[in-house]
């Protein structure tokens, strides 16, 4: 398996979005109609179907900065919102639909998706959750392995900053992000093994293929995984934020952080990161920025929000170099104010009194932003 070289720290964003119907704000099944409609016009990047008919995915092209990605996402947003309006559909950000019934989900009629349903049964339908995937370009496989190990320490940041799935199946889960729990049910979820370099990774990959457990990289549902055909690593822990703007900000933060990790190299990858990973991940999902993470290097606990602010200050020089100062600043400012998408959703529920109203406001927010 060849690792295709790409420009270091180039960016790509995939956004999974919810389709909701107007009359009761439950998930719609009209991805086919919407995509047919969008196929007839020129939209930058790509709009794709996903495993259920209630979901579409926006893909950006390869970008060098978050602001380019933001401009492209904005253009996509406008086109999708316009087409959805004609069909009376709402488009929503957020990691999960607040009250849909998973047994109602219908699978998009394509062979790969049918196989997934065959194999995973109810997990496939319960997996109606919506994430943002951030791609970061790497020059080679070794860089990808290094960045994967180093970024794992910071995954709680991405979980906390993107968390937008506090409600699931009509209930307040008490989590900031309930979505990641749905991912954990799959047998190949989790993280990459602690391998020293790309050659060692290939050895592991070949043995997994030899066992017949995986056919390709797409079978690993890891939090961060190398994507050799794109020449990237892919951060997959983020809930889809409520606005495309926040999605782009997160990509900017990822870029600055990765730039800093590549440049400074003050720490070496450590297996201890994976030892504390499950604890850190839970804290971030459950409590967001108010959770605690264990820093395996400093061997102490620190509040996630405070750790984000420290990190934001540390990476600022790299952010300046890469043109994403504003992104890092805006996210840090939100952390200082105690803002989170999940918190906003809870506040809207308190104000309106019903989840269908929350969904209406979420789709209005997405269309306007």
């Amino acid at each position, binding site marked *: 398996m060849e690792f295709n070289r790409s420009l270091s720290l180039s960016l790509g964003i995939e956004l999974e979005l919810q389709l909701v119907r107007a*009359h009761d704000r439950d998930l719609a099944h*009209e991805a086919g109609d919407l995509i047919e409609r969008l196929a007839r016009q020129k939209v930058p990047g790509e709009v794709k179907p996903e495993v259920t008919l209630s979901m579409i995915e926006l893909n950006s092209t390869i970008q060098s900065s978050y602001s380019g990605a933001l401009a492209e996402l904005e253009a996509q947003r406008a086109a999708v919102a316009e087409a959805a309006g004609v069909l009376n559909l709402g488009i929503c950000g957020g990691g999960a639909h607040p009250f849909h019934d998973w047994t109602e989900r219908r699978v998009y009629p394509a062979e790969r998706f049918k196989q997934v349903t065959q194999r995973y049964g109810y997990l496939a339908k319960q997996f109606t959750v919506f994430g943002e995937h951030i791609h970061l370009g790497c020059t080679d496989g070794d860089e990808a392995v290094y960045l994967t190990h180093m970024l794992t320490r910071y995954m709680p940041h991405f979980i906390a900053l993107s968390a937008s799935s506090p409600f699931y199946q009509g209930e307040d889960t008490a989590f900031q992000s309930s979505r990641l729990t749905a991912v954990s049910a799959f047998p190949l979820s989790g993280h990459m093994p602690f391998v020293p370099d790309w050659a060692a990774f290939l050895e592991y990959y070949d043995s997994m293929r030899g066992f017949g457990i995986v056919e390709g990289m797409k079978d690993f549902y890891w939090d961060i995984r190398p994507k050799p055909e794109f020449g990237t690593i892919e951060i997959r822990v983020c809930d889809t934020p409520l606005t495309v703007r926040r999605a782009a900000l997160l990509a900017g933060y990822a870029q600055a952080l990765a730039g800093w990790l590549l440049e400074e190299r003050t720490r070496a990858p450590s297996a201890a990161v994976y030892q504390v990973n499950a604890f850190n991940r839970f804290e971030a999902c459950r409590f967001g920025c108010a959770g605690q993470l264990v820093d395996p290097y400093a061997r102490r606990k620190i509040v996630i929000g405070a750790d984000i602010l420290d990190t934001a200050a540390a990476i600022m020089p790299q952010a300046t170099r890469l043109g994403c100062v504003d992104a890092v600043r805006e996210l840090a400012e939100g952390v200082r104010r105690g803002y989170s998408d999940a918190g906003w959703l809870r506040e809207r529920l308190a104000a309106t009194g019903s989840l269908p109203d929350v969904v209406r406001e979420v789709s209005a927010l997405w269309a306007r932003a």
Partner: protein
Amino acid sequence: MQELSWFLPSWPPAFGELVLFGALLVAGLLGGELAQRFASLPRVTGYVLVGFACGPHALGLVEGPLFAGARVFVDLALGLIVFELGHRFDLDWLSRNRWLAVAAVGESVGAFCAIYAGLVYFDYSPLLAACAAAVGTATSPAVVMVVAHELRASGQITERMLLFTAVNCVFAYVALTLLLPFLHLEHAAGGRSAILHPLYLLAGAGLLGFAGSQLLLGIAKWLGKREDRQFILLIALVVLVVGCARALNLPVVVALLVLGMLARNLDYDHALLPLRFGHAGQLLFVVLFVLSGASIDFSGLETVALVTAVFVVVRFLGKAIAILALGRLSGLRAGGAGLLSLSLLPMSGLAVVMVYDTAALYPRFGAELAAVVLSAVALLELIGPLATQFALKRAGETQPEPRAADTRLET
């Protein structure tokens, strides 16, 4: 024996309407299940067939007093359905998609013109042809709504079917009402009543619906977002509006459609929760369709077979041509226009009511109108649900019934 007779019933016991009504429900329920399980027919068709079999034109088990006794259930069932249909009418959608509004009105106009032309061609008087065309424009709200519920349908064809049905029902009523002056003049009624009668009907129903919607929204706002409370409120308001419309001689269906439409589109505070029929709704649907089946009368069919066939065919063509012409512009996917036209085929009790309302004014004219329309209604009462079911299934917008063991994992 003599001393026991004070507590034993007389023989044979006088089974009242309640027993008959219960028995009819059981029969309807079984008929619906049989139709669905063994013939893949819509349950609605099963209900209608059972009703027809028990009705005055077949076995004669269901007659006068039972009809009267069940009237309240029928009113409630139809009321809820028509209200929900109105509540699906989304002005925001029409303002974002103007072609959709054009297509919806075009569909009504197409059906009206096609039927009118067809009947005039067969030498019916223009007035009769126009009245029959007005009645024929409407799709049965009950059938499309109940079939959509039964199949758990959701998608563009389903949404448009419901929207177009709401529009063509309003169109049909308004057209028929606007024809009243001609009817009055032809029957030498005074000029004043020729003008004031239709005005009273339309304005009255509109005002009643508006008043009902304001009451509904006001109380709902005060109650808060509680599904159970809002459900009771909704039923209460529907019954209230039906009752008032009857007392004031106003068209019940128009009043309820207006109630539903305004409750949706004037709900600026989003006070109303999305409505859901529970099992109570299902019960009402069985009653509604069994009784509407009981009123099916094929006795006149032989004499008007040709006209009936023409009526059914041109009505479909009129709807289909308009939708084919305008569907694509309104954002309908390729191949959707035919399915949407097919889904709009059903006619039912609504048409019967319109005919009877006219007959109540001018019995002779009413009888002529009935002769033209009612055989077509009888036919479409049976074929219509099949067409709707076929269209929604073919459109891929239905959800199979939940089965106990649906997730067989690969081993």
